[in-house]
């Protein structure tokens, strides 16, 4: 296992993606929250401020997440590649991924 030499995902990139997703989720939540709460504005204010709080990630967790994602991606690619090769193709297509996807998702 030459994991040390294998290229890994940049934790910063993963962190940025995470933050992007979190921000979007928080915004959606906040938007839904305002429309659903007819309560006092003070309450809404408190809620919004809470939801606006950005989620943060610890550096080690980010590293771990990156590795997990890397393994997941390589596994998916390799499995899809075997399917593609079995079909004699040289290009992994969406259908190849679909075939291995259920089991892949269950394996992780």
């Amino acid at each position, binding site marked *: 296992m030459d994991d040390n030499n294998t290229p890994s995902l940049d934790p910063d990139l993963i962190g940025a993606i995470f933050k992007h997703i979190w*921000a*979007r989720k928080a*915004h959606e939540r906040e938007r839904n929250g*305002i*429309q659903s709460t007819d309560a006092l*504005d*003070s309450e*809404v*204010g408190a809620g*919004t*401020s809470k939801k606006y709080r950005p989620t943060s990630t610890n550096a080690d967790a980010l590293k771990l997440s990156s590795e997990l994602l890397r*393994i997941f991606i*390589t*596994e998916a690619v*390799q*499995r899809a590649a*075997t*399917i593609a090769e079995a079909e004699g193709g040289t290009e992994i297509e*969406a*259908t190849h*991924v*679909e*075939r*291995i*996807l*259920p*089991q*892949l*998702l*269950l*394996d*992780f």
Partner: protein
Amino acid sequence: MQQIEACHNIVGIPQEWTIDMTGQISPTRRASFWKTKRVFFVTPQVLEKDIQSGTCLAKYLVCLVIDEAHRALGNYSYCVAVRELMAMPVHLRVLALTATPGSKQPAIQKIIDNLYISTLEYRNESDPDVSPYVHNRKIELIEVPLGQDAAEVNNRLLEVIRPYVARLHAVGLIQNRDYQTLSPVDLLNSRDKFRQAPPPDLPHVKHGEVEASFAVLITLYHIRKLLSSHGIRPAYEMLEEKLRQGPFSRLMRKNEDIMNAKLLMQRSLSHGAPSPKLSKMLEVLVDHFQTKDPQNSRVIIFSNFRGSVRDIMNALASIGDLVKATEFIGQSSGKALKGQSQKVQQAVLEKFRAGGYNVIVATSIGEEGLDIMEVDLVICFDANVSPLRMIQRMGRTGRKHEGQVVVLACQGSELKGYMRKQANSRSINKHMQNGGMNSFNFHSSPRMVPHIFKPEVQFVELSIEQFVPRGKKLKEDHTVETPPFREKLSVAESDLIAKYFHSTSESTWRPSLIAFPNFQAFPSKVYKVMHSCRTEMLIDSMQYLQGLTFPGGNGNFFVEAEVSSGDCFGVGIVEQHDSSSKDLLVLDNSPVANAQLGVTDSAELPMRTIRTKEKYDEPNSGCKSPQEHSYLFGSDFVSVDALGKVLIISVPSLYFEDVMHSKHVSPSTKELQNCLNQETYHVKTPDGIMQTEAVPNVTTSQTKSTKDDTLPTPRFCETDSEKEKMLDGVEKIPGTPGGTCETPDIEEIKALPPLADEHCRDLQDTELSPRLTNLIKIGVVPESPITDSGILKHKIRNESLIPDLASPAKLGTELLLRSSSPVENERGIMDNSPYGRNVSVMKDEMTPLVKMNPVSSTKHSPSSPLAETKTPLAHLTNSSGSKSWRLNSGEVATVEHVQKFKRLRKVGNCGKARSSKSMKENSIVSVANLAKSFSGASPIRTKHGRGKKKPENDVRTFIDEEAEVSTEAEISAEEEDDDNESYDDSFIDDRINPTAGSNQTECGRVDMMAIYRRSLLSQSPMVMQSTSFSPDCVASTSKDNGSGCSSGKMFNSLQVPQLESINQPARKYTESFQMEERISSESMPFGTNDFAIENKSMQSRKRKLSFFQLETIPAINLDQEFSLESEVGGKESSKASQQPQVDKITVNENEFDDDDDQFYASLDLDAVEAQATLLLKHQSEPPIEKQEKIVPPNLQNGGLQGSPSFDLGIW
């Protein structure tokens, strides 16, 4: 910001030139903006700070526009910034805008001074350049009478106020005698005046008193103002608060009027009577929303006092859904009400804009500055505010379309105050007329445009691009900004991204988890991450849902697992070893049973074949040369292959018998010892006996076969066998419920055979068969029960059943016959040459099993017959080779089934190994024969091998040759190889034992070597074959699967017999012993030895089988051991023909014991053996542990038997 948008849309200032900056932008960013942008929209504070810090490039500023210029008072940022700019040598224009410059002339003058204004332009609504943009704004003043309660409270308060005002008036500090018209502002002004210039005639002591009077009066008037303009509640709360502490409470606590007023207010509050202003306001609101759509119409209610905002909110809550109101207040948090943070304010405005609210109740915060959308109605809850604020309030409506302003004024002081302030603002307007040239002093400002330029008016068409909203608020609406990396992507790449990641487009591709259900029934190939249990569950369930039984793939695994579990063959190798050891012990018994079964089968065959066999035997005997035999066999096999299955099979069986006879004869002749004649005789006699016995057996078997042909009958047989198994205690058969019923039949069968040893064998065979069937059932449950039944009845039956399934009943019968014939051959071999026979029998049994598999695959049947023929050919060696070949062929045939076939193959390999061992033994008996037989076997193998097998066969032949030439060194090498192959030292020990035996006789050594090599070769070739066959397996059809199942069943059956033997070891042993005894009594010492060997070999075979099934390496070891044992036995028998059978038996037992020990589960076997052999076994057990130990038992045995101990000594 709206100003940017306005500038863009009106005069086309490019967006990239503009920037809005507030204090929220960091100074460093602001500095960069100051350098890169051209038009700045900044807060005055930012401007002030940046000018002071120098980040604003002030000398490049050309124009400063000041909005809401009326704030430029005192030290406000506007003033500071402008002062800073003016202090610099900068030429710039200042444009100040305001809707409410001020309520008094001095205030306006101050603004002009602060901002260095040189010209004043005044426009009102009626001016021609303003009127087009101003919509009609209806201002309505509603006088609201003070409520009854409020009026009463007001009177009480006036009562309280009057003496203080009178006192102050007496002192001369208040000029106005009418205390009703006094306002807090008046009092404040008076107090200021008093503080600056106290009246000289007033004694200094009185100052405190006057001060206190002022304070009280201010508070009271304030309360009164609240009362009139906002209602009782705010006034009451104010009073309550003031009475709680401070100087006011000290003075007023004892005042009766104030307490009365308070009580009055309390009472009216408890009544809940709304103030007239509130009710009037609600009236106006309802009227408004009746004429306008509540969804689209917006209303702002201004109140100067936060406490009244809550009152208004409460009142609005009472009019239902029509009004969705919210409050809009400042940030500061008071005692009663919490302020709203800026975010909440933004959210409120956002919702107000979106329609979430249609009424805002605002304090003065809503009057100016904030971007509140246009409203239709403005209600001023209190009228007595400065005209500035009133104008701002009115500015909230009438911008884009008509609006309405309602001013609620309470009769009395509030109304008067409102009127006065309106008049005030009108007077200011007069000042503004004519640019205020008469009223204000202006500051000169030089012309900035050089005089050489004469500006002219031009009409320019502005093409203004669509304004792209930006900024914080707008960002919320467009959270997904175009990421910068987009610009770096090629068109194809961005198309790809859009295909999979464009969240809005409908055509977004989403991976489907249900698109390929068929693929989910098989485990997908993995790279590094293994499948999880959840995936396996998914696969299982998918297979179940799809109703698929995958015999080739997963199905096989499952079957195997089931078999292993059912058979007590632990999945774990160790467990398997244990179970296998037990099984082996059982197998020892079972082998006998198998042999018996084979005999029974043979008995059936004899019916047809005996005659032929005899004929063949004659020629075979005449030939006597092993080579010829081998050739004959080979040819026979070939012919069989080429010929029809059934016929061929029968023929080979005959050949086998003949071969067996010839073999027996040949070994005996080779030995040249006394045994030769005796052996031959014995063989003959046993053969005859066997045949005779076989007849009844055959009848039974035939009946069974017929039954097999009919599904129910075979089932019965199977059930019988199962029952027997149950009785044995194995009871692994949970899968076969019918077994119990069948058991009686088996018992019956047993009862029949008891008469003769053969009968016993038959019984055992039947037992084995049921076990097999059970195993098969367990493992191959999905397969047809018929096959199971056939397996149960006999291996032959199984074969027949399988063929029946695939082919007509005739084929099945033929198969049965075939199977029987091989069995017969085995029997004959057994009878003739105990060594070779035993081995051959074992092989034959194995072969039948293998045959069964091939039979199951109809096409394979020929191969099986060939194998059978091979077995006969092998007499000794040839038979083994043929067996192995048969196995191979059968395997080949079955190879189609991948995993199952592999297992079968393995079994076949085992069988081959065994056969090879037997061959070796045979060769030991007759060295020349061995070599020839090997050669013969090799060609046969090659023939059967079909390409792939051929090389292996060649290898084997080479090995055989080597074995012949083999020296001790070679043996050692072989041993090493064996060791390598065999994981356990015990195996090595076993080998050593055989080697020791071989040492005694070179032939024996050679045999051992050959056996080892063969076993090794056979194993390897087996694998090779399996691999080679695998492709065939891919193409395998359902038939193939069936054969695979059958093979699995066969294996299972083998295992089952072991179990049975364990359970009924005593019986089997006793039976076998009896058989041996009988044979011995028949003057067949070799036969007894052979039996023992057979038993051993059977055990070994079983073990091997089990191991093979398990596919564990130990199996190979077992095979080797078996071969060793068989060789030893053969050697011993051949050499020790003189020696008593007992010795051989003991040797066998020793070997068995060794094997058992090696196999772990020897305890049961040992016990059984001990029971059977009693002292001998006990003696042998210790030696079993080690090779060296074996020797002593042999000696002991020899001593006991009194027979020559040559072999023992040699050992």
